């Protein structure tokens, strides 16, 4: 099986130059964790929910050895930072390093790429053609649905 056999082609893509709070509105309904950012048909980045939460926390909280910070009272900076982030454009907050494959990549290679630790924030592997045009997205869910979901357990 190849990437093209499992990829989702009906995804909601975002435009890079609109403010984040506008761009995220349609996503509230569909509960997607990640949305591709497309400019002139080409994939330029991903908006990732997990990464947005990360961006709204002070970096020392995540990078330094602070232990479990439940000893501290709430920081309203988080709300302030989210407000500031919402006013930025999609381009300013998107993740520009994402995993991509071509439609002809073997399924096991796609699955292995999805499991890589260094990109564990990302939810999807992007399927792009030679010109960088976005053709589809593949998540763990797509792989499970197309492989596991097709198995016959009654035989």
């Amino acid at each position, binding site marked *: 099986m190849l990437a093209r056999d499992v990829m989702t082609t009906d995804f909601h893509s975002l435009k890079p130059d609109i403010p984040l709070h506008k761009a995220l509105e349609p996503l509230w309904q569909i509960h997607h964790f990640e949305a591709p950012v497309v400019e002139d048909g080409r994939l330029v980045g991903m908006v990732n929910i997990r990464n947005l939460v990360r961006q709204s926390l002070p970096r020392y909280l995540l990078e330094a050895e602070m*232990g479990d910070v439940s000893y501290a009272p709430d920081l309203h900076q988080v709300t302030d930072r989210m407000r500031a982030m919402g006013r930025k454009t999609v381009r300013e907050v998107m993740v520009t390093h994402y995993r991509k494959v071509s439609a002809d990549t073997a399924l096991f290679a796609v699955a292995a790429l999805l499991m890589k630790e260094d990109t564990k924030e990302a939810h999807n592997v992007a399927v792009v053609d030679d010109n960088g045009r976005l053709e589809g997205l593949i998540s763990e869910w797509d792989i499970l649905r197309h492989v596991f979901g097709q198995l016959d357990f009654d035989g």
Partner: protein
Amino acid sequence: MEAAHGGSHGASAEVLFGLDPFWAATTLFILTYVVIMTERVNRAIVALIGAGLVITLGVLPQEKAVEGVDFNTIGLLTGMMVIVSISRQSGVFQYLAIKSAKWARGRPWGILVMLSLVTALLSALLDNVTTVLLIVPVALLIADELEINPYPILLSLVMASNVGGTATLIGDPPNIMIGTQTSLSFNDFLLNLAPVIPLIFLATLVPLYLIYGRYMGATKEGMERIMAFRERDAISDSGLLKKALAVVGLVIAGFVGHSQMGLEPATVAMSGAALLLLLYTMGLGPDEASERVHGVFAEVEWVTIFFFVGLFMLVASVEHVGLLDYLAREVMNATGGNFFHTSMAIMWVSALASAVVDNIPFVATMIPMIKSMMPTFHEVGLQGADITAVWWALALGACLGGNGSLIGASANLITAGFAERAGYPIRFVPFLLMAFPLMLLQVGIATIYVWYRYF
């Protein structure tokens, strides 16, 4: 040539390519230090390549190079790193940082003073880098809760860690080297260096208060948020905390008594490390135990350790060919062997040098040089002073000098890294304009102290 630099110990016959060992060693030594200063290549790599070349070119046989490595320094550093890497997991550092903010009742200047005090005390017992690595993030969190600019607090913490580290034999790498390569004990450092440290600490706070402190204010809500911290929750493993405190207590007792017991500091630190490792893995299955031991050893800063190894070999090479003897004689000629003038010159040159370059290679070179000055000092006369005064001058100059600029000490760079990520970057020149005069003040006090106490 032989006459000019006092003999090459007859090593020239073995040197490759007909190089004169004196010039080969000197050139390699200077080249290595220059590359270390540029910070383009990791300092451990540079030192090891330098050491490898010294041996390969035949300047120094491997046997002599290994002899040059001070395993007392290496053992003390490694042992303390192991102890700290286990202890820090208990959350005790975060606890102390929060507690000190609450002692100050949440007032910003009070927090600056208390956090600096805790940092100075911890730095005196642990290495400075670990201390700021653990205290600075909590300081940033506290500043965020107070909604104040953390810059004055960070500046003060940098100063406090370098000043506090000066107080003991184990506080700072220069002291560790001086302590392990002379016959000076932990208590000698405590009795001779620690008394002046509170004075230097307080004197540093005065300008900080006048420049920042009197304008530092926070809202009532902010201070209430500080008082709402639950520091007890920072202790993540109270069982581990008890074990760590017991071992640290034993190790400190061991340091205090090491010379009476005839033990070197490295033995005390390594035994403490082994004991804490035992307590830390007791009752665990073999797999889990070995995983923990792996984890602890992985936290040892091997870059620092291998840097020391390479450096000691390089210093051994220039000592072997007579460069350090030659330089020592030149210094003696310049100062006429006057003990007071030489000690003061050593303190100030060390301070200025440490502000711009890493004080570790500097002190590693100075120690054998000063040792070869000793006979001249005794010959010319000590002016009623104790011969150890020159070591205190070196320690005070090299440790306090680290405050002089952002690149003066590793703790400064670590703090700057955190500040940058928190959105309050510490820039080189503004830091220099504040820190360099403060460093001059600190070394000035140290000068008066050494002069008053020993001469």
